[in-house]
Structure formats: C-alpha cells, structure tokens
C-alpha cells in the first residue's frame, strides 16, 4: 500500500453510463507523484472516458476525485480550466487543433503573449513556441499552418501544446496513434526528460511495447472495470494481455476451419489516387478471410475505398469471379455484390437521425420496391425485424433512431445492411473499433459464419491479435505499399509486426 501523501491524484468509485453501455463501473485510479502510469485496455474498455472525467470533459455519474498533494483536496467540482492552472494537461485523442492557425498559434492557444492592449506579440509567440516544439522535433516550422502538416506532425504539435504549460500532470491519450517512427522516438525522448524532471504522466495506449518501454505502473481496464494495478516490471506481456482481454487470446476469436475455394475476387495493378504508392495485386478466395494490416497512414483504407468505388483510382483492374468488372461508382460495386463496411460508422456508414429500419434497407431498397419506385413498407419491416434478430442487434425496436444505439449495435446495423444486399464479397474496415467485447465476439462469429457460407472477406485492422486470430492470410502495408503477403499459419506475430513497422525483409532479427 502506498502512503497517501505520495499520491498525486486519486479517483475513487467512478461510475459512468452512456446510452446502451455502462462505460465505467466502480473504477479507482491512484497515481503517485513523478510516476509514469499506464492505462491500458481494449478499445471501449473505458480508458478515454476515465481521463475525460479526470479533466472534467465528462461528468461522472458517481465517484470522487482527490488531489493527494496537500492532504486530500477534493477536486471533483473543479473545471478543466482550474485544473490546468493546477498543473493538469491533456493531450486529446482528437488532437484538438485549429487547422488554419499556425503551429505557433496552436501551441499557445489561449496563452499567447500579449501586449497591454491584448494584441499578439508575434515574434515572442514564434520564439516561445519554437522552444517548446523543439523539445519534440526540429522539422516543423512554427509558422506553417497546421492544415499543411502531415498527420504525424499534427500529433507532435498536439503533444507540444500539451507540454507548453509545463504541467505537473501530463495525460496522453493514445499519443502514438498517429505518429510515425521518428515521432514515436521523439515522444519517448521527451517523456524521458519529463520523467527526470519529476512530471507525473498518465499514458493511455493499447500498444504493449510502449508500455513496457515507458511506464512504471499499469492499470488495466476491462469492460469498464479495473482489473489490475501494479508495477509494470512485475507482470509479463502474456499475463498482461490476458488481463486486458479476459481470456486466453486464441480462444477469444472463434475460428472454424473452413475449406477455402476458388478465387472470387482479384485486383491487378491497382493503384488508388490517394496514399497508395505502388500498384497492388492480390486475390481473394471463396470462404477466405484476407486481412490487411498496418499502422495509421499505411494506406489500407484508401486502397479499399478505391476498390469499392468511393474514391478515384489511377489505374488497375478488378475481377469478380474471373470476370473483369468496371467499378466507377459505389453502385457498380454493390451491383457486383461487393460491400464495404466503412471505418467510421457514424460518419460514413449510418444516417444517424433515421431509424434502424431505414438504415438497414439503404443499400438494397430496390428490392423492396414495387414497380421500381413504391416502397413495400410491410416487406421492409419484416425484413428489418429478421435482420435485427439475425445479428442480435439490441434495440427497442426497428423504429429506434440509430444514434441511440451503442457502438456495437450500430456496427451490426451497418453489417446487416451488407447482408441484405446479397453481397458475396465483404470488406470490413476496422469493424470492431470502439466496440465492447460482447459485441466484438458476436461480430467475429458472424464473420466466421459468412466465410463458412462462401463469402470472400477482406478484413482491415491494425490490431494484430484480431488479424492473427481471424484471418487466413494477411497483406501487411506500410507507407502506401504492400510489404508482404503472409499466410497466418506460417507466420508469427513478430514477423507480421516487423513488416507493419516498415521492415523490408524479415530475417534473424526479432522485434521486442
């Protein structure tokens, strides 16, 4: 047990509920001064929610927060502004930058050096922000506008902004999610410096390598509950993963052995206009689950969007069951029985202000129309009820607005839409992002079933456990190229990771 006066901040008994899901249940978190405390868990385990409650972006349903420094001062009622003055600083998962402002302006937004009449001191702004950002990188000019920067650079600016206030408690929410190799190194260098200066760090990540590299303590959240807190040194990776996931990893994804058939889909010399640097070639077979993995910015989404007809392509041919098809629009793709379940279900997949029923029939409405234009309401309703049952979509009814469903159920709606359109080739783009474990399992089972019934499936995910557990083969992408095509049975997690990080040829070296 740690003595109270060593604890810097303490959260007790935090509860938080969102529509459809209990995000946090009786969670405690105690962070000691100067320590580097990791907060880990799967997507949707509650990590972001917890720190957003800490920084008062969300208000908890129950629980208290204390500052342990001067004898348990309760800070539950404070606003984020007040907490900032007390030394808190959060680097948001969404970065929260103003795109048309310069890097300098963004770093010091709200804290700019001003003259007595409140005008900007531009050169001082530039100098001060330069000093701050040079802690992470030399490559970014503070006079460039944020919208001109790459995603990785923007993440660095967000980090610079977080440390600009010389915080005593620095909270980083998935800081490496958008960073490239260099950025990650720069971040770690910075964090080491801060640790030496005694800054307390809360570090959210689901990348284990980073946790082991950077942090002293780790708290594991699973399904909104705290399952473990302890020193990083005293727990092995496998054990940690088990705590995060709850069961043995291999068991988590139900994978049936399904005989793989002939080629049902192939792309030749395919190059989208965006992101992807080389021509891509691959085949997809009947009942096969082909994974595409890589870190953020590798080009996975851009590739499938162009295949599906959402984005333009520069060149290439697409074949369905050996027959050359021309996909100039998404309608063409759907007519060819290809279906995309997009990455961002709220923005790209669902019309959130409308009902489950209306969203379910969106891709296949033609089927329900008499004379080509009159919607057969009864048929639509019956079918909708059937689909809801099929994937156990938890909703009070088919008329419920989709926005009121939980993430997992929203995703099921998008997936069912594809089912309804008689698709034989499915492309799933990170379908389990931000979804609770129960729904994830259902989705895995469902995909397995789809494969069994003969569909060809492309499955995009940056999460190696998913890829390794679910897929038959995997394409690893990095920097817009396919680095390697691997058969899951013949490869290891290390090899896949190697190519994910950009390695060229996997040899004797192993990645830790």
């Amino acid at each position: 047990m740690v003595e109270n006066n060593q604890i810097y901040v303490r959260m007790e008994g935090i509860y938080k509920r969102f529509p459809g899901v209990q995000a946090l249940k009786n969670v405690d978190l105690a962070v000691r001064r100067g320590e580097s405390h990791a907060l880990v868990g799967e997507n949707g385990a509650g990590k972001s929610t917890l720190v957003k409650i800490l920084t008062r972006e969300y208000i908890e349903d129950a629980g208290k927060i204390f500052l342990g420094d001067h004898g348990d001062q309760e800070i539950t009622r404070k606003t984020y502004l007040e907490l900032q003055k007390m030394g808190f600083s959060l680097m948001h998962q969404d970065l929260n930058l103003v795109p048309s402002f310069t890097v300098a302006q963004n770093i010091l937004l709200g804290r700019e050096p001003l003259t007595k009449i409140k005008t900007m001191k531009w050169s001082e702004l530039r100098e001060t922000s330069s000093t701050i950002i040079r802690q992470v990188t030399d490559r970014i000019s503070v006079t460039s506008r944020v919208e001109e920067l790459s995603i990785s650079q923007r993440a660095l600016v967000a980090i610079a902004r977080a440390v600009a206030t010389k915080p005593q408690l620095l909270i980083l929410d998935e800081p490496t999610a958008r960073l490239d190799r260099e950025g990650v190194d720069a971040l770690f260098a910075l964090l080491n410096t801060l640790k030496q200066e005694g800054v307390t760090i809360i570090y959210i990540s689901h990348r284990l390598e980073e946790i082991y590299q950077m942090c002293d303590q780790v708290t594991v959240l699973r399904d909104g509950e705290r399952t473990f807190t302890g020193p990083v040194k005293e727990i092995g990776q496998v054990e940690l993963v088990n705590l995060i996931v709850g069961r043995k990893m291999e068991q988590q994804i139900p994978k049936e052995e399904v005989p793989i058939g002939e080629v049902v889909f192939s792309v030749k010399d395919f190059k989208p206009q965006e992101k992807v640097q080389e021509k891509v070639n691959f085949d997809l077979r009947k009942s096969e689950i082909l994974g595409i993995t890589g870190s953020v910015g590798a080009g996975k989404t851009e590739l499938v969007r162009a295949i599906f007809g959402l984005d333009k392509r520069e060149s290439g041919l697409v074949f369905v069951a050996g027959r050359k098809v021309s996909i100039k629009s998404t309608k063409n793709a759907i007519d060819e029985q290809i279906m995309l379940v997009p990455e961002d279900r709220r923005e790209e997949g669902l019309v959130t202000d409308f009902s489950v029923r209306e969203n379910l029939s969106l891709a296949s409405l033609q089927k329900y129309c008499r004379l080509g234009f009159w919607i057969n309401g009864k048929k639509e309703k019956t079918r909708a009820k059937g689909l809801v049952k099929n994937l156990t979509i938890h909703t009070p009814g088919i008329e419920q607005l989709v926005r009121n469903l939980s993430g997992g159920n929203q995703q099921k709606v998008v997936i069912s839409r594809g089912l309804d359109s008689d698709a034989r080739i499915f492309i799933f783009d990170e379908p389990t992002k931000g979804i609770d474990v129960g729904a994830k399992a259902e989705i895995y089972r469902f995909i397995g079933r789809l494969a069994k019934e003969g569909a060809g499936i492309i499955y995009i995910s940056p999460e190696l456990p998913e890829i390794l557990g679910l897929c038959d083969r995997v394409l690893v992408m990095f920097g817009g190229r396919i680095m390697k095509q691997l058969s899951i049975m013949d490869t290891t997690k290390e090899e896949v990771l190697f190519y994910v990080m950009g390695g060229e040829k996997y040899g004797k070296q192993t990645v830790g």
Partner: protein
Amino acid sequence: MNITRGDIAVNEDKSVGIRNVLLRYGVFFFFGVFYIITGILQPKFLTIANLLDILEACSLAALVSCAMAVVVAGGGVDVSIGVVAGLGGLIAGFLIDAQWGYEIPVFVAVLVGLGVGAAIGTVTGLLVSLVRINSFIVTIALLFIIKGFRYSFTRGSSLMMLPDSFLAIGGGRIYGISYLTLWMIPIVAALYIMMEFTKMGRYIYMIGGNITASKTAGIGVRLYTFWTFFIAGLIAAFSGILVESHRGVGTVDMADGFLLDAFVGALLGTILLNGKQMVLGAFLGAVIFTSFINAAQILGVGPYWVYAIKGLLILMAVLINRLVSEER
C-alpha cells in the same frame, strides 16, 4: 464535446414512448391552444368560411414551402424559389397577354411557364450536383440573373391583359373552396407520397441525413440531389402561374415574397415534426402561420404585425422544441 449529465439520454428502454410523443406533439399542443383561444375571443375565426379563407391564403405558401422542404430534406437550399415562380408566371403570361399579340393557346403558355421552372431547376441541380457549388451560392447567383433577365423582356411593365381562360386557372371558387386550394391539395399530397413512400423520397432524406453514408450504400447522390432542385423549380413555376392567374395581373416582382413564405413554412415544418415528414411539416407550417395572420387580422391587430408574427412564431417554435428536447 462537452457532455454533461443533462445531455445523456436516459434509459433507452423508455425512449420510444413518452418522450417521443411529447416531442412530437408538444408544439402542436401549443398551437392547438392558440386556435382555441382565438376561437373563443372571436368566434368568426372558426367559421367554415374563414377556415376556407385561411386555406386559400395559405395555398401558394404551402406549395412553395413544400417545394423548399424537399430541397432542404436533401441537404440544400433554394433562395431563388421566389423569382423562379415569378419568372414562370411572367413568361407564361407574357405569351398570352394581349399587349404583345402572340396568339398562343393558354395551355401551351402554361406549359412553357412550367418548362421555364424545370429548366432553371435543371441548371441549379447540375451546378450543385456536378460542379459541386454550394446551393446557397448557386441559388443566390440565379436570383440575380433572373432578376435581371425578367426586366429584359417586360421592360418593367406589367401584364394586364390576360385572357379569361388564363384567369380561370386560379381565380375562382367552387362550393367556397378556392381553386388555389384545389390545385394545392393534390400537389402537396403527391409530394408527401413521394417523400414518404417512394424510393426517391427515401433517398432524398438519406442524402440530406448523411451524404457519405448514402454514397457508401450505393445511392446515386448526384442524381437525387439534382431531382430535388428540378422538382422545386417546377413547383415554383406553377405557383407563379397560379398567383398571376389569381390576381389577374402579372408584375415583375409578383412572387418575390414567396421566398420568405417558403422559408417560414419549411422551417416551421422542420421544427414541428423534428425533421421527419418534411412535406407534411411544411404544409402545417404554412397553415399555421397563415392562421396566425388571419387571427391577427380578425382580432383587430394591425396589419403591421404580419412579419413580426412570422418571426415570433419561428422563435417560439424553436424554443418550445428545445425545451421539450432538453428533457431527453
């Protein structure tokens, strides 16, 4: 996002039920009360004759409000709806006005007028869906162009010698029901049916709701966006023909006021029914604000307050809607 306790929906188990009913009918309740109070204060308000008057007065506003609702449902706006109406009527009238001596059957002239509306709707639709210009700007630009163009052939003079066969289109009553109303009802009904029961209507709603999701689902978003403007142009032109026929005279700016009426009706409509069933909402919106104005006149409130009433109406509806949804 700043989410506080108050914003989070309470039990999802309850949500289709009491809350929805309150949300849906709260504003109606308010207007219903208003009708009753006015009726008590001034019984003339609730007579059949007066109600028919209200219907007549709101017919054209209802037409353009519903047309605007279709465009808004699809995620656009049509600021030119007033001048398109005027132009359609003007060109139709111009062809048959005795001043200019073209010997054209009324029927043909009306078709030409409608054609004008369709043509402008086509241009708007193409500019928005293919060139991808914001519909606000496109329709503002068209507003300018039409305002200039309509002077070029009328030179500002009015059309005052319109044949009786033309005046008969919008200028009579049967059993007390105005012809305007008789034209309005089937058109509004057709629009309602289209939006609620046909594939096109469903696609329009979905495109307005989330254009990216619609695209991912394979809907031809350009095509249906185009149609919204085409339909609006057509209906606007017809409304212009009706107003000209009803008044018996064609002036250059005769339908300019339609724009504001369309806004009020369509906006009230989105508030009343929470963005659903927009044609019905726009229709009710037009009926409601026309009733308010009628009530004001009957109660002796000066004619000065027409606009103020429209404004207050929208404001009140917005506030009531917000108050009710705060409880969600």
